[in-house]
């Protein structure tokens, strides 16, 4: 697992599970793991109490997203066996005090920030889950195109035609030969988001669908791909921007930031 989180565990404590849970927490705007992004500054476990220090790229990172991440981190920690209490800290973030007080107390955003408009963050989260769906699907489409599948073939594929062998996607159409078709992780991430959005995951369901779960015609595929591609570029560019900002904080923690 690629991470460089300073961990402070009791003697003999196996931190594998807690790090795996943290790895699954995403920056909703970037659709990347907070662990991989380097947002987890420190992790400490003592007597069933987990304490995580988040370090976001700037003290001004949007409060709504900061809240979502802090809340998700706390929930993830509480699913770990033996962890009975979880505390998330936000360091020098401009709204650290308010977010920490609310999240660590299990109170919703709307209560912590009354009058900030949107109230519930559910809609915001869904918007970015849907963007992430496009981003993940674009990488799959890119792999399928690069391994020679035509638009007509891509649109005809069923979920049951795709499987994973080691780190590779294998596409096997009924009566056809297996074709290695890109990175298994790309397929698994796409299927995971598909499930989160409640889209059909039965073997007979089309592999490539739109956000309503409807199949695409070969004619529609190109325009769909062009849209997905722009969403992916936007998310990756933002992630890149955040990483650049964060690397500066890592390099020189005393710098004004």
């Amino acid at each position, binding site marked *: 697992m690629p991470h460089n989180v300073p961990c402070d565990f009791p003697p003999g404590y196996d931190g594998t599970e807690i790090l795996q849970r943290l790895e699954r927490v995403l920056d909703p705007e970037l659709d990347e793991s907070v662990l991989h992004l380097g947002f987890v500054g420190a992790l400490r476990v003592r007597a069933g109490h987990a304490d995580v220090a988040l370090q976001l790229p*700037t003290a001004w990172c949007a409060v709504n997203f900061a809240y979502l991440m802090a809340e998700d981190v706390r929930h993830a920690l509480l699913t770990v066996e033996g962890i009975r209490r979880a505390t998330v800290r936000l360091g020098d973030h401009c709204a650290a005090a308010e977010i920490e007080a609310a999240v660590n107390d299990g109170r919703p955003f709307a209560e912590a920030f009354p009058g*900030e*408009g949107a109230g519930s963050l559910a809609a915001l989260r869904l918007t970015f889950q849907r963007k992430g769906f496009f981003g993940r699907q674009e990488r799959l489409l890119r792999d399928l195109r690069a391994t020679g599948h035509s638009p007509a073939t891509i649109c005809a594929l069923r979920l049951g035609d795709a499987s994973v062998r080691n780190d590779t996607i294998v596409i096997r159409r009924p009566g056809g030969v297996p074709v290695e078709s890109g990175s298994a992780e790309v397929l698994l991430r796409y299927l995971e988001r598909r499930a989160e959005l409640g889209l059909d995951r039965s073997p007979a369901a089309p592999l490539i669908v739109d956000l309503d779960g409807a199949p695409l015609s070969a004619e529609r595929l190109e325009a769909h791909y062009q849209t997905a591609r*722009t969403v992916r*570029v936007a998310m990756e*560019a*933002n992630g890149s*921007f955040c990483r650049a900002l964060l690397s500066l904080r890592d390099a020189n923690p005393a710098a004004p930031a």
Partner: protein
Amino acid sequence: MYTHDGHDLFVIDGHMHFWDANPENWRTKYGESWIKCFYAFHSSLSPAEEVWPFDKFCRYGEAVLVDDLFRNGYVDMGTLNSTYLYEFYKNGFNSHAQNNVIKTKYPNRFLLCGSFDPRDEEAGVDAFRSMMADYPINGLKLYTAEWKDGSRGWRLNDPWAYKYLALAQELGIKNIHVHKGPTVYPLSADAFDVHDVDYAATDFPELNFIVEHVGLPRLDDFCWIAAQESNVYAGLSVAMAFVHLRPRYFGEIIANLLFWLGPDKLCFGSDYAIWSPKWLIEKFMAYQLPEDLKQEYHVDLTLDVKRKILGENMARLYGIDVAAQTAILSRDGIGARLAG
């Protein structure tokens, strides 16, 4: 003016600042953390040798600006994107009045942006009219995420925003720069969301809307809107800075913008002093779109396209005749010294 293989490229920096973030001007702790956030943008994406000390970054003054833009930075004209932030800075961050000090000295070098805040409602109308009468305002810069009296932002399609846009149009304004960029401090209202531009652009077809920072981190939403609305343009500041540290993403962003908007709607901006035009323009001119992106998107960043992006597109929006303006600028104080 940037000269490439004997070709002159007229440069308009569509987004630059003449700010005062000196500690004496900080009204609250937010004045400090605002400029520190800008400084983080500056130091993380600039080439190491271009990073300034923090105190210079807080207030650099007129002589430094003139050198960085016009003497060393290839810029012919700069667009002063006034940003007020009175809740953070006692005298404002760079109000039109502060900016007009430098415009008065070099009147042909700058396009000056004024602004309005629809939350002032009726009470702000007279002040807006006075600003338009008393200052040589060329365009407007709107900052939808600005805090005011407990409000954390507003939207371009709010009823009072429409009244001000109509008034601005009546008073001769053509170009509206809208800040839609990296989330600095919008709370849940998500005040940098770009969809309000769609409504305003449809309802004010005579106005041009230049979306600063191409809506990053909402590049995708911006592209859908700009592809549909003929009067929506891309302001490239922030995106430009990727050319150094993240050239691949820069290429992907430019390829997407060329794909959805075409070469006539992209406008250079440095966001000076966050980034300096000299290195941005040198790296931009040296940059070639990677072959795979050219083929995938069926676009290219040719010299002709670069010329449009660096100045011609913005000149067209502001009705500037490049040849005539070049002649005028060659005779002003800066131009004469450059020639000498």
